[in-house]
């Protein structure tokens, strides 16, 4: 735990070594990294280890306890392997979260799920989000989106924001989606292809928006608004960050999320006074807004 603190890298390596001794292609290997602190100077090496583990099919989940761990870094680390990170405010919650994690592993239906989007000149993807469970922004690598695991009985929702150019009337293809996944039960790779086609008509048609979509978007909007808060803070736009947090608090209250709204308001006040948020508030908002997708 010294100043140079390489504790996470060493622990991570030791854990992965142990797992590799038993890891086979047809087994499920998962490492749970439990931490309450920061690691200094070895972040890049940790990420490299995680990337390697991900390529070998070993998944890493991160459970961060308390306020002092670096959520952005550890979240990135888990993502390298298709795993997730969770925020644990109190040590008493560890057992419940661990149990849920292990239970989720027993429900595994498909692994390495990817969505490949092939665009046409008529349409392109502006944004992509996993809307449930936890909300997260998905970024593509050359049109390929990594979704991680698919669990039995738990739907994964992915939301594409697609911009469509005006076209002459008639049916036109917009996008092609290809889903690919490994099904461990049959040790087989599955592929599904879906062509998105739409009819263009000369007159504007105003179709009602499905309420389910509106509901998802209302929560996703808050998630996107909090992304803007971090961006504003990173670039030193303190007043902008404060204003955004206050707006988030209002929206959260409208949704009945009083507790999270309260945290957002408190943190807005903190920003106004000292120019920065508390570590705890930051994590509560980051993970709280992700969790909005869980209802």
């Amino acid at each position: 735990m010294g100043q140079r603190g390489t504790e996470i890298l060493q622990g991570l390596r030791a854990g992965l070594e142990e797992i590799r001794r038993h890891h086979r292609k047809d087994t499920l290997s998962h490492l749970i990294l439990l931490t309450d602190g920061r690691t200094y100077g070895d972040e890049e090496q940790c990420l490299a280890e995680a990337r390697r583990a991900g390529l070998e099919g070993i998944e890493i989940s991160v459970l961060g306890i308390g306020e002092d761990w670096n959520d952005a870094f550890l979240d990135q680390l888990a993502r390298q392997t298709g795993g997730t990170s969770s925020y644990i405010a109190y040590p008493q919650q560890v057992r419940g979260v661990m149990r849920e994690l292990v239970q989720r592993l027993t429900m595994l239906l498909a692994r390495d799920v990817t969505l490949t989007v092939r665009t046409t000149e008529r349409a392109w993807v502006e944004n992509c989000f996993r809307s449930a469970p936890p909300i997260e922004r998905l970024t593509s690598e050359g049109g390929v989106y990594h979704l991680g695991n698919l669990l039995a009985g738990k739907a994964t929702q992915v939301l594409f924001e697609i911009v469509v150019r005006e076209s002459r009337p008639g049916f036109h293809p917009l996008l092609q989606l290809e889903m690919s996944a490994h099904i461990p039960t049959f040790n087989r790779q599955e592929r599904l292809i879906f062509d998105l086609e739409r009819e263009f008509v000369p007159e504007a048609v105003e179709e009602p928006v499905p309420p389910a979509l509106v509901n998802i978007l209302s929560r996703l909007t808050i998630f996107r608004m909090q992304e803007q808060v971090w961006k504003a803070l990173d670039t030193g736009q303190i007043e902008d960050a404060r204003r955004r947090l206050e707006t988030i608090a209002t929206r959260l209250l409208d949704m009945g999320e009083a507790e999270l709204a309260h945290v957002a308001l408190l943190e807005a006040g903190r920003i106004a006074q000292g120019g920065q948020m508390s570590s705890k508030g930051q994590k509560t908002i980051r993970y709280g807004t992700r969790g909005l997708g869980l209802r």
Partner: protein
Amino acid sequence: MIECPSCGKKHRLGTLFCSECGVYLPSGKTLRTEPFPTDELSAPRAATWETEVPGNDREKAPPVIRVRIVDTGREIVLPALPELLLGRLDPTHGIFPHLDLGAERGLEMGVSRRHAKIVQREGKMYVEDVGSANGTFLNGQRLTPYLPYPLPREAELQLGRLRLHITVCTESQQP
């Protein structure tokens, strides 16, 4: 392009939620933002906040706002100012509302320090929630924050859980 009625940010046609302030953009069933009636909003909002009540109807006495706290029966008469802040006094943070509800158990009843505003524009009254924690209700309807709503001559205004009876009257109507 459509414009967010709350913050003014422009969005592509078909956008459902404002990415700036989270407001649901379509009003009603259509995907278009309904414009405000032009007689209610004739000038940009920022320019009109600070302006005085127009002087062309000088023969009419300026209105006052009578506020009755429903639970206690206490009555307060507020002068006609272009902008009236309702909330709780907090001198350390420089919040000095025109109507301080701290004495009316405001904190307990969920009144924010900066809760709502009554604004006058071209002789008309509007009420606006200014991002209160527990919301403002006009005759039972929750107000979307930062949107001015026309204030009728008689209205039930609820700040958090504190109920106020508001009467807008001209000086001549006073006893």
